[in-house]
């Protein structure tokens, strides 16, 4: 495989973009988890009203949605890596990758519905 200075320019991304996105989304998720932990700690003792009111402001809805989108993208890259490492037959791998995308897209839509019901 011609890499380095002799790499072929084929319009592929050579995985660099996904590599960076996986790190970026990881940082987003750490920041969101810390934010959520602080808000939960501040709202203690947690009953239904205290818990639900965390997710009522539009700012928190947006932050949570950004975290969910980051989670989906992060999980997609990670699962794609797993399929690429362990599943050699192209057909099976593509089916698994498609199933992963549908799985995550479904979860994302559900998360939006949950958030905007509160």
């Amino acid at each position: 495989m011609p890499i380095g200075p002799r790499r072929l320019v084929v319009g592929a991304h050579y995985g660099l973009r996904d590599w960076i996105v996986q790190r970026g989304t990881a940082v987003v998720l750490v920041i969101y988890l810390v934010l959520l932990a602080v808000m939960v700690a501040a709202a203690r003792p947690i009953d239904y009203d205290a818990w639900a009111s965390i997710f009522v402001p539009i700012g928190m809805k947006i932050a949570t949605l950004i975290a969910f989108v980051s989670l989906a993208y992060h999980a997609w890259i990670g699962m794609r890596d797993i399929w690429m490492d362990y599943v050699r037959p192209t057909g099976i791998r593509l089916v698994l990758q498609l199933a992963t995308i549908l799985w995550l897209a479904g979860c994302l839509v559900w998360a939006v519905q949950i958030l905007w019901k509160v």
Partner: protein
Amino acid sequence: MSERRIIRNISIGDLARYKLPVPGVLSILHRISGALMFLVLPLLLWLFDLSLRSELGFGHLRSLAANALVRLVLVGLAWALLHHLCAGVRYLTLDLDLGVERQAARRSAWIAFAVSGLLSAWAALAIFGVL
């Protein structure tokens, strides 16, 4: 340097005798915990939905979480998240070229295990209502 047996293209039979170094164990557990959370994502969303749906749903969740078996599952999921988080932060530091040498990498792997272990123990105590 101590003598090391060189293993190349190991077969299945060699796996039992192959001793994975600590960063390797951390790494495969990072992958397993990530895949686990991917698989249970709908379950977590269902719990999230239940907790936010209504006062009744929240109470239902409370009574579900009173079951010891459910608590055990929650402890397992808390461990998966905390292990994935701690090992992941370690990878971010490695990406910044910090602690790449073998000794430093082994030490940071132990630290990641220690931190995620302590946090998991704390989470377990909280889930079982000891705290």
